[in-house]
């Protein structure tokens, strides 16, 4: 049998085993890759298996952490390319998904810094950690809502706070000694007011 033919059979039979392989076994195949066609094919197939196993979870991780002007799929793609490059030298074999998230977190922070330094607002203090970058991303939405909230009277503010801490209208009614229907109506109107107020602020800053 020709070398190419035997290589093909080896790759095909290995692909059947990859599905049941652990992450560590798959990364080991990637670690020993060399330019020879059979080993490279095996490494690529192992990488595909890792992708199928973890890609949806990486995307879910990224989607809630990217700022609005960054595409989560782009960062996911870059994360996988970095993983391919770094598995042989930087992955120690334990908890692949956690390692992947760490690469993604570093890339997010880099992207965030890049975008901010090229934005018009150059005198801004750049966040140094992913936590602070996350707060930075949420800051605009928080500030608008907080401003609008301060325009509500004290009782309505209290009702909103209690409701958004998981208390029911009935519990709030008993706690504040206000009629059940009144609590319901005030919460509903407060929500309406806040939505209008925040949307108005968005229009003004657009």
């Amino acid at each position: 049998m020709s070398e190419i033919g035997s290589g093909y059979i080896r790759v095909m039979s290995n692909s059947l085993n990859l599905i049941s392989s652990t992450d560590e076994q798959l990364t080991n195949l990637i670690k020993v890759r060399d330019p020879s066609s059979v080993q490279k094919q095996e490494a690529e197939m192992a990488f595909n298996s890792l992708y199928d196993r973890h890609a949806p979870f990486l995307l879910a991780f990224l989607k809630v952490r990217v700022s609005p002007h960054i595409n989560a799929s782009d960062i996911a793609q870059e994360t996988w390319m970095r993983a391919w490059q770094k598995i042989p030298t930087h992955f120690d074999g334990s908890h692949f998904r956690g390692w992947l998230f760490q690469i993604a977190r570093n890339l997010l922070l880099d992207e965030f810094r890049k975008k901010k330094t090229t934005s018009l607002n150059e005198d801004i203090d750049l966040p140094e950690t992913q936590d602070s970058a996350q707060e930075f991303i949420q800051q605009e939405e928080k500030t608008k809502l907080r401003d609008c909230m301060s325009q509500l009277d004290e009782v309505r503010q209290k009702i909103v706070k209690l409701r958004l801490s998981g208390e029911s209208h009935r519990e709030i009614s008993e706690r504040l000694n206000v009629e059940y229907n009144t609590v319901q109506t005030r919460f509903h109107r407060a929500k309406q007011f806040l939505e209008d107020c925040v949307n108005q602020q968005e229009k003004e800053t657009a």
Partner: protein
Amino acid sequence: MNLAAFDLPEQTHELSDWLVTQVTGPNLSSIVAQLSAIHSDQDHDLTIEAICGEQWNSIIQNGFSELTQNQFQQLLTHPYLLMELQERLLLEGEEYWQKQFLNQNDDSEIKQTKLIIQETLQKPILDSEATQQAEDFKKVPYRKIAALGFVSAALLFFAVFLNQEPVATPGWGWNRPGALTADIPADQYLNRLADSANEWFKKPTDTKAALLTRLTQFRNGCETLINAPHPQLTIKDRTWLIDRCRAWAGKLDNQIVALEKGADLKTADANADALIHKLVKALQNRAEQVT
């Protein structure tokens, strides 16, 4: 803006499903922002462990169905925990959570990214460069090859001669073999990292070349730290450590660039010492806080 956080259901059993949808969905960041705006007066001391306690195992297996109203309230009033909760469920969640996250995903986006990655892997830059170099080599006449060989050998000799002190020598600080793999409790681990960083002060940095070498080596140690798994630490401490290390790495890069551009040795040395002192202190403080 849609104030989705205001649509949370009233009944505890409905709250459980609602929170699952939010934690696994793409609008979590917005929900967290809205809840943070409303509960801005809350402290930041609470942890997921403190809220969920022994129920964590039940959560990762079956979702939030066993949480009490009080536990839901603690999560809603400390919304910064929801992002950490999502990450932990992505990493530790069992079949129940895997399904929930998969239900929220857009398959076409994932397939599209896979195709792009496969295409890139099949045309690796290094391979094409190697092929091109091989092609170029075939075109070069023998005399030129001999001349190139001589020049290369000479360059290699000068490179070795000039670069007697290698820039990225591993072996001290965070690059010391075994420094990051010790099976010890989190506080001891962080203190050990502080001690390793303190090795900075063991060698003199009284010339520009020595300072530059030492800074570069320390920066490489930072990279090792960033890429290490740190199984000794919780996710929160690990995240803290790596985020801090990214920041330190950025500052070290700035110091290296400044030095290369001709910064005054005394000032650069003092700045480097101050940075290392600061990061050692930060690690020791964190060690005191971990349980």
